Each structure stands twice: as C-alpha cells, then as structure tokens.
C-alpha cells in the first residue's frame, strides 16, 4: 500500500513544482531527468530483464531526435504524430539489427549493437543532404498543443513530465507482467525456458523493440527541447549515463532504476559539480558496482533479504 501512495505523492510534487519554483534552470534539470528516466528504463528492459547489453541505445536516442525533427521540418508532419512515428521507426530498425545480432550469441550482440551505434553517428555526420552534417539542424520550431505554443522550460517540463509519466506507467505495467517474468526466466536459463516451450527469440526482439521505441521518443523530445540537433546527440556520454543508472539501480528492477536515475540526474546539479567531475563520479560508481555489487542497489537489498530468509527457513 505504501508504494502506490509514495508514487502519487512524488507525481503530485513533480506536477506542482513549477508553480512554486520559477527557476528555468531547475525546470530544465527536471526535463533532462524525465527523459533520462525513460531512456534508462528502456535500457533496463533489454539489459535488465534479458541481460542483453545493448550499446545501440545511443543510436535509438539520436535516431529518435533526428527522425522527429526531419519529419516535422522537412515532411511537415505534426510533432504529435512525428514523435510516436519516430518510436516506431526506431523499433523497426531494432528488429532489423536485432535479428542478425541475436543469431550468434550474447557477445556478438554487444559488438553488433556497438557497430550500429558508431554507424549511425557516421550517418548523422556524413549524410549531409539529410542531416545537414556536423553543423546540425538549427531553428527547430516549437510544437503546438491545441493552439498553445510549447516553448521554454516551463512548457517542456510538463511535456517531458507527462511523456515520462505515461511511458513509465506503461513500462511499469510491463515490468510487473508475466511477459517480463518470462524474460527474467530466459535471462536466468535460456535452456530451461526453451525446454518449457518458450521461444526466446520472440521475447528478445520484443524487448529490443520496446526499448528502442521509448528511447527514440525521449530523444525526439530532447531535440525539440534544445531547439537544435547535431551529431552530438550520439555522444557516448548518454549511453554511459543510461547504463550507469541501470547498473547502480539494479538490473531488472523497476523501482531501483527509477530511484538511481532520479538521484543521479538531480544530485550532481544540487552539488553543482562540473560535467567532468560528475562523470568521474559516475565512472567510479560504475566501477564500484560492477566490481562489488553487480546487481545494484535493488540486488543488494534482495540478497540481504534472501540471507535472512535462508537462516529462518533452515532452522
């Protein structure tokens, strides 16, 4: 009963924040946090539930940005249509990449997704007629919501916030479903799952599709928020940030990644760390967790609980 109550309070506070806080800096930190949360949780689907380390997320993030911008500016689509379409486009791409990448093994999946990520950066930089190359596309127009211009930190706070709320609710529904349980089963023992009649490939492709879908839409909103898009959206920094949030929170844990993602987005801002120092601390956190607590905060708590249970039951 405590969890839903807590969730409602958090959402309420987040919704009322712009009414008390007028600093556009704080609101823009909020926008970034909302988008990171969605992207990190998406990565948590494929990496957390299935254990498939996808480095292609940075590609989906950037593709979502470019697709949405180009669809709006060059094709004249409405932002509200272009955004989900960018998700679908990235999803279809994820199937095209995932199908061959999954044919060999888990390791080849890492390498193929990395190559895909490098390739998309190259396309963004060098396919000048489509992406305008390294200079990027400036002057991205504001979306209009029933005649209201969505511009500035205040409006984007709500746009990104509502997007994150919807996405995370859907993802929560997913993480608590039997589909996610089957994915956890595949991750623990693919042979056992197959011997019980599960087709792992279908689940892997579904996970990859979902994670690409949500990540791309988050990237699309990012592009419209910064009003310009250039190949820096493919900066490996984003990939590292999502990955660290998932690992620190605990692979496969919804709440863990949510908390880790929020803390890691807000804390460095509160402490006024420079970007370099923040990344040094992120990197140290990654090293520490991978080396000493590979299952993250959620895993650590779970292990303590299991130990207690074991000693209780064996008495």
């Amino acid at each position: 009963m405590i969890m839903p109550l807590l969730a409602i309070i958090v959402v309420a506070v987040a919704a009322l924040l712009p009414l008390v806080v007028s600093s556009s800096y704080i609101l823009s930190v909020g926008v970034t946090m909302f988008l990171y949360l969605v992207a990190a949780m998406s990565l948590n689907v494929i990496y957390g539930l299935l254990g498939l380390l996808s480095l292609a997320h940075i590609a989906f993030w950037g593709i979502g940005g470019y697709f949405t911008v180009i669809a709006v500016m060059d094709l004249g689509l409405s932002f509200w249509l272009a955004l989900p379409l960018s998700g679908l486009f990235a999803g279809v791409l994820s199937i095209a990449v995932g199908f061959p990448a999954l044919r060999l093994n888990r390791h080849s999946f890492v390498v193929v997704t990395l190559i895909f990520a490098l390739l998309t950066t190259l396309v963004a930089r060098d396919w000048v007629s489509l992406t305008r190359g390294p200079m990027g596309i400036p002057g991205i127009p504001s979306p209009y919501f029933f005649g209201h211009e969505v511009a500035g930190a205040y409006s984007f706070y709500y746009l990104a916030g509502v997007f994150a709320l919807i996405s995370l609710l859907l993802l929560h529904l997913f993480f608590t479903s039997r589909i996610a349980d089957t994915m956890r089963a595949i991750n623990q023992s693919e042979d056992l799952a197959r011997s019980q009649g599960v087709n792992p490939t279908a689940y892997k492709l579904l996970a990859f599709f979902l994670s690409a879908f949500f990540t791309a839409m988050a990237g699309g909103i990012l592009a419209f928020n910064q009003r310009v898009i250039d190949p820096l959206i493919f900066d490996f920094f984003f990939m590292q940030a999502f990955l660290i949030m998932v690992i620190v929170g605990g692979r496969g844990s919804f709440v863990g990644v949510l908390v880790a993602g929020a803390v890691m987005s807000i804390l460095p801002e509160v402490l006024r760390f420079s970007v370099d120092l923040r990344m040094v601390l992120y990197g140290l956190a990654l090293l520490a967790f991978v080396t000493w607590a590979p299952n993250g905060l959620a895993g650590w708590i779970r292990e303590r609980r299991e130990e207690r249970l074991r000693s209780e039951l064996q008495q």
Partner: protein
Amino acid sequence: MNSKTPLLEVEGLRKSFAGVHAVDNMSFSVAHNTITGIIGPNGSGKSTTIDCISGFQRPNAGRVKLDGRDITRLTPQKIAKSGLIRTFQTVHIYESMTLRENLLQAARPFQAAGWVADLLRLPGMRREVDAAMVRADELVDMIGLRKYYDAPTRILSYGQKKLVALAAGLVPKPRLLVLDEPVAGVNPTRIREVEEVILNLHAAGESFIIVEHNVEFVMRLCERVIVFVGGSKMTEGDPKSVQQDARVLEAYLGIPA
C-alpha cells in the same frame, strides 16, 4: 491416442561431432503409460540421445516420433509444446524466482493468453493464472516443499532443487517426461521420496524416461530398461533380464562375457 502407436519412437538416430559418432543407428521405442529406464556407461550416448530427442541438438540422421508425429527437426520449444518435456542433468531452475513462480512460469507457454492479455491483465489471463496455481499447489505438496513455496529457490539445497526441477517438468502434464539423472547427487532418503513421487504420478497415467547412473534406482522403478553402449542400443528388457545379461555386465564392469 492410439494405443498401438508407441508414445516415443526413435529410429536410426545418428549424431557425430567432428567425424566421431556420439550416437549411431540408435533405435528404440517407448510405450504409453510406462516408466522406461536408460542406462549405460559414460560416453554411451545417453545425453546426446536426449538432446537429439528434445531438439537441443540436431541429429545428422534418423527420425523421432512422438505419438506418431514426427518431431525430428523441431526446435526445443516446439517439441516441449507438443508434449515432450525434459529436465537437465545439472540443476536448471530459475534461482532468483520463488518456488511458486518457478511452477507458474513452467505453465505459462502452455496457456493461450497472449502478450496483450498479459499486459492488460484481461480476465482470460487471470483464469489461467488461477488454473496454474491449482496445479502448482498440487505439485508442491507432492514434492513436500510447501514450507518453501514463496522462498527464492536459490536458498534450497541441491536435492530440493532437483525436486523443483522435477515438479516444473510436470506442471504442463506432458505426455512424456524425460528425466536426465534425477537423483544424481541426491541423498538416499530423498531418493526414496523421488521414487514415491514418480510412482504416484505413473499410477495417475504419466509416462517417464529416466536416464540414470544409479542402476538400483532404475531397476526398482522401471518396467523396461534400455542399455546403451558405444552410442547405440545394446539390449533392452525388464530389469531382471537386463541385470542378468552377460553383455551388460561386461559393458559396465569390463568382464569379458
């Protein structure tokens, strides 16, 4: 079900690795509602045969039929769904899930609800979960681990984990359950319990193939015993006649007949 067709029919199975035949010209069949034992020394092709039957390895030649239906080149998941379930020699269970979740997960692929029904918790999905829960309740009592029902299976002992694997295999009521060394490394009292579980299920109509190193266990439990040597079937018969077969003694003990 036609009682004339055997439940499982293996014909001329061959599997080679780098030119060496692990299994060659393997043929045998298993009747409905029986417990069949497979024994043989190390390297006699027992594991390879099970892998080929259950789809985990592709045979180079030969045919496998389940209830008259050819399942030779199907994927493991399709073979499982057509009613042949196997367990593994080393314990394969979902260690971070609870015992209950392990059993419910085993039921999942045999239920009709799709991804949408699962995601939206439609009534169809709820009915299925309830039905699976009833079956899981039955099995957890049968293996006597109700105390651990909601504990993560990681905390169980080795023998208990083997029982969980057995119960998970039984969840979908398979036509044939292939047990790969179900009691290897399990302590003797526990072995008696496993025997009892299997005999009860057999009485209820379940069919088993049991691959085991523990010859006594096989002899006590099985109506028919098949002996593998050097990648093919050497002989088969009831436990008594197999035990007295000079060739079997030779294969096991190296005593020339």
